[in-house]
């Protein structure tokens, strides 16, 4: 009995971490068909936001109210990731709709940039970037307003403006960097640690022998709340209705007056924001580093693929299933259930897979086998437009 409850709890707990990471992906990939390989990096930004918020609370509010930081960190990590996601959608992805493979490569490029950005961001860099953006986009806006440039000269003008503002920004940035205090990277490449508030550090005793870590319980609750929020947003709000209708039939929605470009932006921002919240959640589990996102991204995609694209319920079931199977295999519970370490070929087979990384091998192999039976996932999209 105890084994059953512990297994269920740990499995569900792994599953909910997967789910909260995959939730944003299910929206972006499932509803829009966009492969966002930078999803993990949006998560990482959420995690770093949490770190900054925590340090801010520590510095300005003192240690006694430090535990309150999470209530600010959750919305802020959502907002930061959503804003970056919005910029990503407006700046890159909207030019690539209908070209999924190109989107995949472009978002990978963005993820590389974000990873290095977190490593080397300093005041000099921020100053240079701000100067560049102000000059370049401001210049383009001004030129677009005041001067009439024929379309074939646009390239020339843009290139000139780019080089000019780049040079000025470089100058500004390196000038700021002359001050060693300002040139210091904010986070550097080392991992940083976020301390969970006191009430999340202990564990809750259910019966004798069964203890649930409070942080895991908190993640489960947070995931449920996010799920509920996404469900209500998609089903009950006006924007949710628009998102669903664009998902079902983009052309028809556009004909009926739904601003599809705005819907795309909102959907992408929502998915990115959820990635930020996921980033907050994983700070409770371990330290935060620039490569945080890479560890989760493939698993999250697996959840969406197994669940069936465009179906939130499928993602939920898939995440929980994958979580429980991973725990069963990885923790060696399977070996214990089958009767100890020396019980024949079956046991030694499961024993071979009884580490975290080998459990992943087994789970992914099972997923590929599962897709042989149901190529479109648990809940395949219906209708003629369904294209596996």
């Amino acid at each position, binding site marked *: 009995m105890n084994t059953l409850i512990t297994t269920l709890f740990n499995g569900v707990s792994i599953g909910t971490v997967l789910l909260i990471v995959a939730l944003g992906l299910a929206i972006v990939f499932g509803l829009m068909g966009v492969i966002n390989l930078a999803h993990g990096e949006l998560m990482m930004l959420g995690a770093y936001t949490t770190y900054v918020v925590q340090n801010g609370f520590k510095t300005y509010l003192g240690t006694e109210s430090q535990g309150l930081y999470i209530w600010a960190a959750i919305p802020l990590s959502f907002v930061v990731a959503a804003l970056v996601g919005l910029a990503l959608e407006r700046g890159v992805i909207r030019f690539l709709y209908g070209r999924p493979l190109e989107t995949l*490569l472009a978002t*990978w*490029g963005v993820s*590389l940039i974000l*990873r290095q950005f977190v490593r080397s961001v300093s005041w000099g860099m921020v100053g240079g970037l701000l100067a560049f953006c102000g000059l370049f986009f401001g210049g383009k806006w001004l030129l677009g307003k005041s001067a009439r440039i024929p379309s074939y000269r646009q390239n020339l003008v843009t*290139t000139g403006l780019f080089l000019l503002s780049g040079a000025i920004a470089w100058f500004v940035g390196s000038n700021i960097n002359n001050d060693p205090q300002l040139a210091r990277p904010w986070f550097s490449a080392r991992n940083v640690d976020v301390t969970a508030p006191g009430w999340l550090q202990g564990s809750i005793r259910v019966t004798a022998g069964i203890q649930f870590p409070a942080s895991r319980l908190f993640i489960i609750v947070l995931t449920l709340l996010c799920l509920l929020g996404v469900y209500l947003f998609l089903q009950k709000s006006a924007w949710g209705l628009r998102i669903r209708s664009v998902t079902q039939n983009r052309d028809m929605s556009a004909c009926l007056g739904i601003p599809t470009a705005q819907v795309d932006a909102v959907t992408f921002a929502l998915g990115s924001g959820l990635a930020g919240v996921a980033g907050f959640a994983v700070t409770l589990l371990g330290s935060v580093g620039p490569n945080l996102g890479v560890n989760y991204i493939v698993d999250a995609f*697996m959840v969406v693929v197994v669940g069936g694209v465009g179906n939130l319920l499928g993602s939920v079931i898939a995440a929980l299933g994958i979580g429980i199977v991973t725990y069963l295999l990885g923790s060696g519970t399977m070996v214990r259930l089958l009767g100890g370490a020396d019980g024949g070929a079956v046991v030694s087979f499961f024993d071979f897979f009884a580490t975290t990384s080998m459990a992943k091998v087994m789970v*992914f192999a099972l997923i590929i086998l599962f897709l042989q039976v149901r190529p479109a996932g648990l809940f395949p999209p219906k209708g003629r437009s369904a294209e*596996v």
Partner: protein
Amino acid sequence: MSDMTTETSGTETPGITAKAEQSGLAKRWELLIVVAITLIFLFLVPAFISGFRLGLLGRFLSLAIVALGIDLIWGFTGLLSLGHGIFFALGGYAIAMNLQLNTLPEGAIPDFFSLYGVSQLPWFWQPCYSSGFSPVAIFLIPSIIAGLLGYLVFRNRIRGVYFSILTQAALVVFFNFFNGQQKLINGTNGLKTNTTELFGMSVGGNVMQFYFYCATVVFLALAYLLCRWLTSGRFGRMLIAIRDDENRVRFSGYDPTAFKVLVFAVSGGIAGIAGALYTVQSGIVSPQYMSIAFSIEMVIWVAVGGRASLVGAIVGALVVNWGKTLLSEQYPDIWLFFQGALFLIVVTVLPDGIIGWFRYRAKDDLRSLFGKPPVVATYPRLEVDETVRQEADLYGKTQPVDPTTSTAPIKSGENS
């Protein structure tokens, strides 16, 4: 490439024999050029650059072989594989295992086994004793794995991004397996080859390294010719048809699955050979060859050079890797910015890569950079248009309608 141009421009030449002759001539010229470049790389280049740089070049050339394999499946067949690291690393492991065993005296097992308390050689190491097995294994094992994976995926009509994600998942599976199995293949430390011996010479030594460089050049030329042969004939047209409209291929009565499995297996085999050559030249094979980032990097080489252009794949691999070496020697911490920007630029501004840009857009882009309008192409004037004249003859109208009043010239120079 030259094939395509001869085919399109050869429409005016009457008779099929002349056309075939022309294409045969182009083929012979191309072969001659490939042989000439191969000879230059074999005899001239080593005379001019130092040993260290030559080693680097050898490694980059072996990466260019993978790029050819990726171009074959991505550029021509439209399958974006993010898991080519699997086949690359498998080729590397196949040759490293053979080298390690052949260096040891009879009956001994590699040193690292003793660290983990293994005294019996694992079963899958056994065939590597035979020196006839390895040269076959470096391309056969990756091909078989690729064929199997491809069959399982393509059979279910899983394609597009789903295929990419699944190959990435497969990559993670293999990475975790090789990374976690210390007792079987030395886990995360990998297998070293530069301390081993081949034909009584040290693999890490200068002489052997030079031979490996030569082997790489030869294999690159062979891989190019293989891919060229595969993509130029009817098989190649089939691949392009699958890329452009797979459903239509299916409706026409072909089974794309078989073609896709075959081409994926060939591509995997090419990657395996490349991995083996890369391993012996860099001195080690480790699970890092199966990292997610490395496999996506392979794709970007092809994208930079130009998809669906075999020369582009080679050029892209060489340019990106030289650039990486130069930049990361100078500014180690901002290389990732450049790489990320490269991905963005290639996708948004240069969708056809360097070669494609030269071929289609260089002229107009350079003109617009200097503030000149692009060359506007129009339909030919009606009185010189072949079809219009024929129709005029047919319907007994000797004088075609005045072009200036009937049709406006249509611009087709704008990039869409």
